């Protein structure tokens, strides 16, 4: 809770310190000085930082009012309302595909350690992590949209529009999760309880799923939850390349034109989401790992 508060304050003061006067952006040169002074007062830009901050927070909490966009002159919430589903769709699908591919492939790479498949997947994922998502996006557009004409270059109306962006967004995080899964599984395979289970005559598949995978998944879960915010920042780039008018594009454009209320609102949402993710990852670990559950519960057994 304190963290959310600090993040919002940080975001707010960052933007408060930004060069450029929001009134200059809203008005043009023809507007008289008196009118401008009146508008400064009306928007509260003449108040000190903490007064502006508390007024902003109070409005959000009481009326769910994120303020007015300086540029579009409509409430910020109206701008975000249309854009959130598009970004959620993009990030959600890519997260799902990442999990569905990375976990089994990582497990396989660890089990068949040093095989051709293992070497291939390790080197291939290293290559993927070295590849900036914007370049991968450019390549995908070039091959599948320009060359083969299977998918449209940009747009957001149909499901077909989302295929390439999701692939571009998934690639980077997929590589990271796959490598982590592999490393974790290898670590667990060295544990004595795995040897014990195998020696007892527990079937191989059962050992793999009940002993190895369950223990390896703990770190993987943490990292997936922690990577959610990174997925969002990846989405900024992906949305720009593929021209999807989602939250990332909104944030980017608003920063360029210095539309402060929009930037503040978007950053606030992302910060809250991050804190929620951290909390969720703690809860999920506690569910998966009794050792940690005991530690959190104060050590009573």
């Amino acid at each position, binding site marked *: 809770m304190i963290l959310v508060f600090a993040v919002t304050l940080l975001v707010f003061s960052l933007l408060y310190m930004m060069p450029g006067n929001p009134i200059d952006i809203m008005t043009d040169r023809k507007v008289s000085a008196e009118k401008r002074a009146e508008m400064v007062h009306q928007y509260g830009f003449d108040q000190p930082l903490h007064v502006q901050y508390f007024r902003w927070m109070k409005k959000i909490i009481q009326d769910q009012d994120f303020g007015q966009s300086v540029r579009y002159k409509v409430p910020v919430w109206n701008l975000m309302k249309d854009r959130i589903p598009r970004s959620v769709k993009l990030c959600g699908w890519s997260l799902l595909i990442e999990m569905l591919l990375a976990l089994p492939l990582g497990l396989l790479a660890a089990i068949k350690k040093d095989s051709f498949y293992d070497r291939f997947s*390790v080197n291939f994922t290293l290559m993927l992590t070295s590849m900036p998502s914007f370049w991968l996006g450019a390549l995908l557009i070039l091959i599948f949209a320009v060359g083969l004409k299977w998918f449209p*270059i940009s747009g957001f109306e149909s499901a077909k529009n989302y295929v390439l962006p999701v692939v571009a967004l998934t690639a980077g995080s997929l590589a990271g999760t796959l490598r982590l899964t592999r490393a974790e599984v290898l670590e667990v395979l060295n544990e004595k309880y795995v040897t014990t289970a195998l020696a007892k005559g527990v079937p191989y598949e059962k050992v793999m799923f009940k002993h190895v995978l369950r223990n390896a998944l703990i770190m993987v879960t943490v990292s997936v939850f922690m990577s959610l915010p990174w997925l969002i920042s990846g989405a900024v780039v992906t949305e720009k390349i593929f021209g999807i008018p989602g939250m990332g594009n909104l944030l980017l454009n608003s920063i360029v034109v210095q539309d402060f209320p929009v930037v503040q609102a978007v950053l606030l949402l992302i910060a809250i989401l991050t804190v929620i993710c951290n909390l969720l990852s703690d809860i999920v670990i506690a569910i998966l790992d009794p050792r940690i559950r005991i530690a959190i519960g104060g050590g009573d057994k």
Partner: protein
Amino acid sequence: MSSKSKETLHACLHNVNFMIGFFMLLSVILVAIFADKLAPFGYTDQLVGPQFEAPSAAHWFGTDELGRDVLSRVIYGTRITLKVAALGASLELIIGVVVGLSCGYFGGAIDHVFTFLTDLTWCIPGTILALAVVTLIGKSLTNSVIAIAMVCWASYARPIRAKTMSLKTMAFVETGKAFGESSAALMFRYILPNVIPSLIVMVSTTLPGTILSTTTLSFLGMGSQAPSPDWGLNLSKGMDYIGSAPWLSIFPGIALVYTVLGFSLLGEGVRDILDPHLKSQ
């Protein structure tokens, strides 16, 4: 000592990742040093050929919308990328080491404040925080590196803090203290040398990320400004002509992937050599 360094050298020579990464980076560094000699044209020379010429014998990588030679621009871009890598790594390192050491060594209020700050920077996705910082201090390449460093130092500070806390209680530090060494001397002459191996590993594993983040900022128009031959910037310009002139975005991208891959391989190699415990097996 000399036998130990010989051993390390031997390990380096026999580590495939390290050697491949080393030679990839060496080639990039050589290209950057001899950019003037290698590039057939200057990176701002306009109309050295027709506009939008496809790759040909005269212009291996083609020409762009102003008739500039793409090959020359890619070659000069190596300088920018290496500058970013050097500047970014040293900034992150300095902030991370100073904060990490003082948190671990002094503990108490300093520790609380900075741990809270680290938590805070973890709370906002890096690229987005960096975007905000760049908007605050102005768009330029140096500023974007500073922004990335301000976001990334936390990943150095945390492990260094933990390491310092455990080293602080060791006998040799206590001895130094008993001899009346100052806190600064204890931190930098006694504790720091013991952290250096992990530092090298950290630098080499985070460098690819630093380069990618900075290029991303340039791609988003928040880093280098035209007419810089920055790869990220060129890629984003090239995206406008992706249908008609794909070579504008393909070649800077290949150069970027090559360099980052070189750094990643080198990082993997260094980690395997210096930190056998973390070895990727």
